[in-house]
C-alpha cells in the first residue's frame, strides 16, 4: 500500500460517499454544539420536519455568552438568556446531552470535550465554532463549521466537504525557558501569515511537538485556524494515551483497549507525501506578542514593530496600527497595560493557570490593571482550588471568575473598554473582538502574568531570572 498521511487515513475511513466532481460526504463521530451557532440549525430542522438522527453523538454546552459572575442567578441580558434557554430546550426535545450554565461539566466547548474523554484519536469532530481545531491535538480531524452544516450533522450525522490539501509543519529542537506553545504557534502564524495555510489541513510534527503536553498541543491546534488552516492535528502517542487514561470515563470503557491497539496505526507513514512542508526550529522562538489586529501581526516581545507586514496591503496595515495606537519601529516593552485576560479555549486550562500562578506567586497584582482570570471549565476551576492555585492568586490580589468564553469574544459583560490595552491569552486580536474599540495584545500565559504584576508589557524571562525559576 502507498504510504499515507494520518490525515488521509482518518478522512478516507469516514467517507460515506464521494460525490462525482463534488465534495465528500463525511461521517462525523462527535458533534459539539453551543448556544450561539445552533438555534438556527434546530429551527431549520423543524422547518423541514426532520429530527435529530444520532442524538448520542452530539454534546451541548453553554459557553459563549454566559456571565462569569453570579452564574447561579438568571442571566441578566435578555437576548443571551433566551439563547441559553433555547439550547436547553432544543437539547431536551432531541435527547441531546447538555451541560448548561452551572453544571459541574460546563465550560468552554473545546475545554470540556477533551477533559470528559469525548475527544478520542481517529475521530472526525465538528462544531459550529472555528476553534474546533483544538481537538486535533488528539489525532482527530476536527474543524469548525457553519450553522447550515450544524443542521446537516443534526439531520444526518454527515457533512459535505471537499478534501483539503495536506501540509506538514515540522518543528525540531526544544522550546527555551519562558517560552510556551502559545509563543510557538504565534511565531509560526507571524511567519506564514493569517492566510498562510488556507486550503490546507496541517499536521504538526517533530521533536518539539512530541515534547509538548496534551494541553500545550491543544493550544497549538486551537490556533491553526488563525493561519487559515482548515484544522491542525498531531499524531497520538504516549502523551495522548497517558492523558486519556487519567480520565475514568475513558479508561474504564471498552474503547480504551481497542484504541490502544489502533494507536500505532494512527501515524503518518514514512514516505507519505504532503502538498506542502514547512520546517521550524523551536529554539528560535522567543516569547511573542501581537501588535496589530490579526494574529499574524506578531513579534518577539523585545522586538520592534516592522515597517510593513507580509500579509496586508499598506492601507490595511496602517489602519491596523492606527487602531492599536502604535507606530512602525516602536518597541512595546514597558508599554502600559489596562487589562489582562487569562482564559479562553486557547489558554484557559489548568496548566495555563499553573503557569500564571507560578509567575505571580510572591508578587502582587499591579494596582492599575484589571485582571480577568477565567477558567476554561468547571473542572479547571475545581482543580485550581484543589491544587491551591486559587489561593496563590487570591494572595497576590487576583480573583477567579466562573468559566465561560468571557472576554475572548465579549458577548457577555466582560468587555474591554474602547481604547484600552489588554494583554490576552485568547486567540484573536481583531478590531473590537474584546469589545468595541478594545486593543488586544495576544500573548501566552507567562507574558500575561508578567503584565498583570507589572502593569506593563514585560518580558516574562526578566521576572523568571529575578525569582530564579
Amino acid at each position, binding site marked *: 500500500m502507498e504510504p499515507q498521511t494520518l490525515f488521509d*487515513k482518518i478522512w478516507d475511513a469516514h467517507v*460515506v*460517499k464521494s*460525490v462525482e*466532481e*463534488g*465534495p465528500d*460526504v463525511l*461521517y462525523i463521530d462527535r458533534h459539539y454544539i453551543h448556544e*450561539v*451557532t445552533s*438555534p*438556527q440549525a434546530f*429551527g431549520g430542522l423543524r*422547518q*423541514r420536519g*426532520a429530527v435529530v*438522527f444520532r442524538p448520542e453523538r452530539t454534546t451541548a454546552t453553554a459557553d459563549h*455568552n454566559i456571565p462569569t459572575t453570579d452564574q447561579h442567578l438568571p442571566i441578566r*441580558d435578555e437576548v*443571551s438568556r433566551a*439563547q441559553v434557554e433555547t439550547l436547553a430546550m432544543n437539547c431536551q426535545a432531541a435527547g441531546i446531552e447538555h451541560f448548561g450554565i452551572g453544571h459541574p461539566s460546563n465550560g468552554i466547548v473545546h475545554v470540556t470535550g477533551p477533559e470528559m474523554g469525548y475527544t478520542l484519536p481517529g475521530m472526525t469532530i465538528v462544531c*459550529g*465554532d*472555528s476553534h*474546533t481545531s483544538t481537538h486535533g491535538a488528539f489525532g482527530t480531524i476536527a*474543524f*469548525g*463549521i*457553519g*450553522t*447550515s*452544516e450544524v443542521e*446537516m450533522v443534526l*439531520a*444526518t450525522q*454527515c457533512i*459535505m466537504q*471537499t478534501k*483539503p490539501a495536506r501540509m506538514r509543519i515540522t518543528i525540531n529542537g526544544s522550546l527555551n525557558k519562558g517560552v510556551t506553545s502559545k509563543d510557538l504557534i504565534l511565531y509560526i502564524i507571524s511567519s506564514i501569515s*493569517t*492566510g498562510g495555510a*488556507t486550503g490546507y489541513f496541517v499536521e504538526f510534527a517533530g521533536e518539539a511537538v512530541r515534547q509538548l503536553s496534551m494541553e500545550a498541543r491543544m493550544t497549538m491546534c486551537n490556533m491553526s485556524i488563525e493561519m*487559515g488552516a*482548515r484544522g491542525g492535528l498531531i499524531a497520538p502517542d504516549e502523551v495522548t494515551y497517558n492523558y486519556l487514561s487519567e480520565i475514568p470515563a475513558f479508561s474504564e470503557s471498552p474503547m480504551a483497549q481497542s484504541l490502544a491497539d489502533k494507536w500505532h496505526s494512527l501515524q503518518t507513514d514514512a514516505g507519505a507525501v504532503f502538498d506542502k512542508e514547512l520546517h521550524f526550529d523551536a529554539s528560535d522562538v522567543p516569547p511573542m506578542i501581537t501588535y496589530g489586529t*490579526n494574529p499574524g501581526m506578531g513579534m518577539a516581545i523585545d522586538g520592534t514593530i516592522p515597517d510593513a507586514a507580509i*500579509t496586508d*496591503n499598506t*492601507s*490595511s496595515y496602517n489602519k491596523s496600527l492606527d487602531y492599536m495606537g502604535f507606530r512602525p519601529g516602536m518597541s512595546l516593552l514597558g508599554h502600559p497595560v489596562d487589562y489582562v485576560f487569562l482564559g479562553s479555549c486557547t489558554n484557559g486550562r489548568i496548566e495555563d493557570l499553573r503557569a500564571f500562578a507560578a509567575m505571580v506567586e510572591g508578587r502582587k497584582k499591579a494596582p492599575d490593571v484589571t485582571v480577568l482570570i477565567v477558567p476554561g471549565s468547571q473542572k479547571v476551576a475545581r482543580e485550581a482550588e484543589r491544587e491551591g492555585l486559587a489561593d496563590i492568586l487570591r494572595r497576590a490580589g487576583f480573583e477567579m471568575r466562573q468559566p465561560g468564553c468571557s472576554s475572548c*469574544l*465579549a*458577548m457577555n459583560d466582560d468587555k474591554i473598554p*474602547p481604547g484600552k490595552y489588554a494583554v490576552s491569552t485568547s486567540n*484573536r486580536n*481583531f*478590531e*473590537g*473582538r474584546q469589545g*468595541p474599540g478594545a486593543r488586544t495584545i495576544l500573548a501566552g500565559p507567562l507574558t500575561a502574568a508578567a503584565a498583570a504584576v507589572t502593569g506593563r508589557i514585560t518580558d516574562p524571562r526578566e521576572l523568571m531570572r529575578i525569582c530564579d525559576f
Partner: protein
Amino acid sequence: MKREKFTILESTCVPLPQSNIDTDQIIPARFLSATSREGFGENLFRDWRFDKEGNRIEGFVLNRPEYKGSILVTGSNFGCGSSREHAVWAIHDHGFRAVVSDSFADIFRNNALNNGLLPVQVTSAELGDLTEQIIRSPETRVKIDLDQQIITIEETGFTASFGINAFKKQCLLQGLDNIDYLLGMKEEIMAFEKNRSL
C-alpha cells in the same frame, strides 16, 4: 427546501479593498444573540458603518450613495476568523449576492455557498483592475455568469474566469439544498455505520 436560484447577476459594485477582513468586522459578536436567521444585515460592518453614538460614518463605503449594488468587491483572505454563518446572513440580508476577492477563508466560502452567496475568486491582478475600475467609475455594471463561470464588464472588455466545485455550482443554479441531498442518503449512511472500519 427550495432556495433562490443563482444564474446571472448583473449589478454595480461596492468596493472594500481591505485584506484580512474577519467575521468579527462583518458582524460583531455582540449581535449574535438572535435565534433566527433574519435581520443581521442591519449590523453588517456595524463598527465601520456607525460610530459609538450610532451615527453613520460618512466616509465608509456602505454609507456612500455612489457605491451600491449586490456585488461586494473586497481584499485578500476575506471572511477569516470565526465560523459564524451570521456573517454570510448579514451580507446576504444587506442585499449582496456575490463577493469578489482573490482569496477567501475556507469556512466562509462553505457558509456562503450554503446560503446562495457566490464567492467569486479571481487573480490578484484581476481583482486589482476590477477594484480600480469600480472606484473610478462607481456606475460600472459588472456581470457574473455562474454557468459560464466568468465575470465581465461589457464597456471595458474586462473578463475573468473563476472556479467553483461542480456539485456546488449545480446546487446554486438549480436552487438545491445540501441538507435535502444528505437526507436522501439515509440508507447509505446507515450502511456505512454498520460497516465502518475506524
